[in-house]
């Protein structure tokens, strides 16, 4: 009996490995193709996975350098990838900081203070997450269109409008932060209050320094969220040099304008750092949530 089981076990293991390897291949295949295409001359996907001739033309393209076209003439890149990347980073950094500011303070009140409507507010924040901004795109467009007629620096096609539109998305972060604050011992803050610290000082000098890791995580998550956000940005931004990367990238693989190689280089250039940051933040987040779960 034992021998039979071990034999079937071996077969099962082999099958499992085969299945997992196939799946890993399917996961890795697109990445390998993109890497290969970015190094291959021309924008057409022919040739083997390992390029026979290496060419840096696509990398020159995304870095905004003149590159040699098919006929050997030097061409100027027509899509400003670095500009888009900079726009994305700018918008994401500012909106990450705004989100952090808004959600740390709100979470502090929800974690440490007792006031009427606290439960209801927490539930409302939870509910808000169920309704994505994509349902209100028309209204968002109309609001910023009107804002722009009063204050042009807040209107359509401005980065300020995008930051403002993102600033309301604090629900998830408030919950994350509140969960973390709940795990920190209140006694430290109570001691500070006894020593004469004001509520604000307790928050700013005592609680925030203890919560530094989770602040970093929330900032990173808000940052990534803003970088990869597409629907709102696609509605608010239309001028080519104002686009964020998420909106601009699709111009590469347009039906009639298939910049496959250039897109591949742009995808690696921008995707690699974002992925790395995400993997980092994700690990911290899971650790933070696990810690938050201890108290229940």
């Amino acid at each position: 009996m034992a021998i039979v089981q071990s034999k079937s076990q071996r077969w099962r293991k082999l099958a499992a490995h085969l299945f997992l390897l196939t799946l890993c291949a399917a996961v890795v295949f697109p990445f390998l193709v993109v890497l290969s295409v970015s190094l291959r001359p021309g924008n057409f996907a022919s040739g083997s996975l390992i390029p026979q001739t290496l060419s840096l033309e696509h990398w020159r393209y995304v870095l905004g350098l003149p590159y040699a076209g098919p006929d050997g003439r030097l061409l100027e890149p027509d899509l400003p990838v670095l500009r888009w990347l900079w726009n994305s980073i700018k918008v994401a950094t500012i909106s990450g900081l705004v989100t952090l500011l808004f959600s740390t303070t709100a979470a502090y009140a929800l974690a440490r203070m007792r006031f009427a409507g606290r439960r209801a507010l927490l539930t409302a924040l939870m509910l808000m997450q169920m309704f994505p901004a994509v349902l209100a795109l028309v209204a968002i467009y109309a609001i910023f269109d009107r804002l722009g007629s009063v204050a042009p620096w807040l209107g359509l096609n401005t980065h300020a409008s995008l930051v403002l539109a993102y600033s309301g998305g604090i629900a998830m972060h408030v919950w994350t932060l509140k969960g973390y604050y709940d795990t920190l011992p209140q006694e430290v803050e109570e001691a500070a209050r006894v020593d004469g610290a004001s509520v604000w000082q307790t928050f700013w000098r005592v609680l925030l320094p203890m919560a530094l890791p989770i602040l970093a995580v929330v900032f990173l998550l808000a940052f990534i969220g803003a970088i990869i956000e597409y629907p709102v940005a696609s509605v608010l931004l239309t001028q080519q040099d104002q686009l964020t990367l998420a909106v601009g990238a699709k111009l590469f693989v347009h039906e009639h304008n298939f910049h496959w190689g250039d897109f591949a280089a742009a995808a690696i250039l921008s995707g690699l750092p974002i992925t790395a940051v995400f993997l980092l933040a994700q690990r911290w987040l899971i650790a933070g949530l696990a810690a938050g779960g201890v108290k229940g």
Partner: protein
Amino acid sequence: MSVALLLRLLLPAAVLGLLYALMGVYASGQTLLAAMLLAVGALAIWTYSSPRTGALRYLFPGVAAALVFVVFPMLYTFGLGFSNYSARNLLDFERARAYLLEERIREQGSEREFSLHREGDGLRLLLTGAAGELLTPRFRPDAEHPQDLPLVAAGETLAAPLAMAERVALLPALRALRLRDAAGQVYTLSSLRELAQSRPLYVEAADGALTDQLSGTRYQPDAGEGFYTSASGEQLQPGYRVNVGWRHYARVFTEPRFRAPFLSVFVWTAVFAGMTVLLTTALGLLLAVLLNWESLEARAAYRLVLFLPYAVPGFISILVFKGLFNQNLGEINLILHGLFGVRPAWFSDPLLAKCMLLIVNLWLGFPYMMVLCTGMIKAIPADLYEASAVAGAGPWANFKLITMPLILKPLTPLLISAFAFNFNNFVLISLLTGGRPDQLDTSLPAGTTDILVSYTWRIAFQDSGQQFGLASAISTLIFLIVAAITLVQMRMTRLDQDHKR
């Protein structure tokens, strides 16, 4: 205490700033915006000046931002759903009326040639002709803002006239000029060489109707349709925004050529979301079970690689797939052609396009399910499996009798949120197929792979004349559907918690 002092000092400045901004916004006719600004601003000032607003001081910025930029747009969407807001009815009534009253007709035979002369850092315009020369004061060319200038009899010596090439460059600024002579006649640019007298095209009667001065037709404002309309039904452009009640909803549910595509989009949305959840959960659960199998080697490596699709930004991987699936140039068809000699038309065949969407969404979505299920399987007490091993149960029995029943309950609410998420998975549809290929014989363009949100986006922003009102009405319907899903989910979560207790 220094913070309190600072706040007290800033208060008068904040009040003044708010009032100033309010005046500007209100004066420009944005009543709704002004009301919102007043409410938020007043609340902010009260919050930070009153000594009795403990928690609110900390809640205010975040909650206000969420209310203004998340909740308000939702409510505003409901409101727009009852309006005819669209490219043809973009302006409010006052602005449409002002626009029409600005329209002018040229008096035949009143054309007069002109010349431009530089003076200092500005220009002067000289009207020539038999009736005597007329001259403007100095002005700065400005294409953005209309300028009204008086015309006076000329008698001064002027610099040499500008050459034609320079005049061409100034055309946009010249178009914005309105010159008025002593008799009150208004001259505007009629060609590169000439100005001509003009008068308003429409004259407003006491009852608000506009009369066309050329044809004599009367256009009555129609508050039901949002157009100035003549007796024969002719409408003046631009129209204006009015409330149209339930019209959009009636259209969605009763107009056959609209209802049919709407229904098919709705069905595909549900199928897409349902299939996605089913496929990703099946694969994710299978992987979670496999990777939880302790005698399997290299589990950490597998887990890392299989997590990758979740970590890469969606807009990048979706566009990568758009390239990979390209019919003639994509790698996937290259391989299929090499192996089987076929080149499927992933983007122009409706069924294949749907399959492609599901394949790509499976690739994107299974790691999340894998992580979820792994966590839940880890939470199952190990002694259950030990007991089943003692009883001689196989892996299938383990899965069916222990794993599945124990994770199904906590998993269900998460599956419902995944369904709701994919129900509104605008990014995937928009970036991969854009809803195409299109359906035939529809009153508004609708795609075979469009889901409700991408269909709405199309109506509002792409190829259907920016019908914001109609799009908002459909958004409201989606909102109701999502609310229903959320209710079910909350019920499920509560059941789960009750069960735990």
